[in-house]
């Protein structure tokens, strides 16, 4: 893979700097790759991700070794992890020491008593099923999850070319070179977090690896001490930036801010775009989906203020277009159509079962995004809504029909209807009688169940009890009549 060209030529340069101030050299990652190659029985590996040396080395080492990692959140629910192990039979699980007991117990329960097969810094390699792996397509390189709901896990099948092409496009428009110093702010199992790693690895820029959260003093001490040059975030990260008064912090090395994972409220966009213009910094709003590894569009920093509200233009090497309902391309400005992307970074397709991992390219470089958009005379795109009923809350995608199905299956006595926006999910529940004291414990149970199965934060869920969920004569739920509050 081309993202490894720099490090193969410079094994003694720095891959990452850790919280204790020590450096991890590219050499160690190459060696980790060797170890994985020798010890893995087959190519499929699960990596439970935290922003630690073990995860970074495990992820990149696997890719370099030609293994196929599925990246998962280290805080994944045991139920979901068990489902995935049963289904896909990974050769190894790379797990941070802090989550080791959970992973061992789950693997045992899934029928694979784990055996420790080595260590990668803070993480351990747990051998699960070295013999019985699924057949993998030769070009399959990486698996990422889309929504995290139990029982319907949809994996995105990415190739090495997808990752290389996207890292190159990102490095080009963000003007990344080896002098950059990014800091880990997003999980590596989230495609945006992964792309930050890949695009900087490509250019030989060392990564400031921190397990500190953005609301900890330790995080900002590293930003200052290590001269961090760029910060990244989803919309709520920018709310935190505002709360912490980032604009008035003394951060002379900071040059670039990027934002993705949903639309930033206009006031925040304006505040950061004008600050960046005023102080000679660059602020980029970006657009992507995991299915495109993930980047598809960006708003050039010099137009950030003037074109606020726009998600920008296609990344270098890609093409964005709008399609009408008949599938014809819309060329005139200000007409809403479905956003379609074409480029070398579009994944091969999804996998919902092990047999799918043997499949070749199904999408042929074309991704129908499900987002509705329009463009202006200059060709800048503006997202106007979504074709299907799904939300993106704090970077996590949630299908509303799926949420209803999950609740309905677990709590068959209640009828549910889900609506929402990118801040909250509203669950409407049908309840005949007016028994107020029953409501709170019921709502709490539903919320915790949604948290467990979909990974959505309970804070973003509101439950409303209604006598009747509005339905049409044919029995279809009339979602437009349900208020989002």
């Amino acid at each position, binding site marked *: 893979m081309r993202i490894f060209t720099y490090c193969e030529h410079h094994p003694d340069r720095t891959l990452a700097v850790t919280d204790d101030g020590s450096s991890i050299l590219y050499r160690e990652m190459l060696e980790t790759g060797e170890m994985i190659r020798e010890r893995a029985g087959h190519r499929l590996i699960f990596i439970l991700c935290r922003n630690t040396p073990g995860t970074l080395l495990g992820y990149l080492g696997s890719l370099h070794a030609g293994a196929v990692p599925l990246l998962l959140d280290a805080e994944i629910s045991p139920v979901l992890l068990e489902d995935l192990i049963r289904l896909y039979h990974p050769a190894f699980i790379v797990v941070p020491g802090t989550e080791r007991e959970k992973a061992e117990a789950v693997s045992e329960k899934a029928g694979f008593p784990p055996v420790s097969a080595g260590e990668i810094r803070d993480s351990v390699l747990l051998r699960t099923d070295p013999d019985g792996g699924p057949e993998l397509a030769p070009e399959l390189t990486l698996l990422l999850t889309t929504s995290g709901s139990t029982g319907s896990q949809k994996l995105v099948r990415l190739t090495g070319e997808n990752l290389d092409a996207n890292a190159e496009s990102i490095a080009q428009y963000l003007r990344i070179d080896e002098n950059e110093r990014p800091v880990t702010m997003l999980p590596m199992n989230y495609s945006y977090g992964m792309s930050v790693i890949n695009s900087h690895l490509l250019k030989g820029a060392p990564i400031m690896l921190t397990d500190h*959260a953005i*609301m*900890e003093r330790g995080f900002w001490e590293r930003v200052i001490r290590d001269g961090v040059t760029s910060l990244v975030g989803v919309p709520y990260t920018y*709310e*935190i930036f505002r*709360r912490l008064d980032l604009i008035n912090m003394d951060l002379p090395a900071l040059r670039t801010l990027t934002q993705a994972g949903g639309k930033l409220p206009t006031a925040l966009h304006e505040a950061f775009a004008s600050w960046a213009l005023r102080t000679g910094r660059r602020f980029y709003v970006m657009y992507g989906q995991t299915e495109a590894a993930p980047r598809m569009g960006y708003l050039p920093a010099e137009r950030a203020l003037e074109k606020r509200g726009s998600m920008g233009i296609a990344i270098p090497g890609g093409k964005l277009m709008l399609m009408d309902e008949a599938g014809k391309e819309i060329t005139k400005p200000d007409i809403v159509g479905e956003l379609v992307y074409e480029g070398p970074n579009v994944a091969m397709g999804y996998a919902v079962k092990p047999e799918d991992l043997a499949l070749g390219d199904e999408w042929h470089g074309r991704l129908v995004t499900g987002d509705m958009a329009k463009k202006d005379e200059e060709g800048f795109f503006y997202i106007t809504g979504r074709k299907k009923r799904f939300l993106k809350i704090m970077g996590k995608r949630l299908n509303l029909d799926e949420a209803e199905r999950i609740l309905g299956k677990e709590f068959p006595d209640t009828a549910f209807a889900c609506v929402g926006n990118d801040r909250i999910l509203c669950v409407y529940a049908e309840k005949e009688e007016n028994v107020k004291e029953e409501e709170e414990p019921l709502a709490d149970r539903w919320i915790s169940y949604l*948290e467990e199965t979909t990974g959505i934060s309970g804070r973003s869920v509101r439950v409303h009890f209604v006598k009747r969920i509005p339905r049409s004569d044919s029995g279809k739920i009339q979602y437009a009549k349900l208020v989002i509050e």
Partner: protein
Amino acid sequence: MTNLEKYDREFIKMFGVKKEELPTLKYRGIKKWDSMGHMDLMSALEERFDISISTLDVLDFTDYEKGKTILAKYGVEI
């Protein structure tokens, strides 16, 4: 209601914890007290005690006990 009662109530309401859990409660120690939860907690305490917590104090507010000494700086004795 005493200041301590008010203080406890914000945590209990925000994170759905029991009173007994409060003394050991810390940022990132439970799922609900994440970055977003921390923002919400700061806003709730600011509103409750009519104060404005500085950036450094937001960052230093790492656990339930530490929070008491931070609020004391703003004249809120707990």
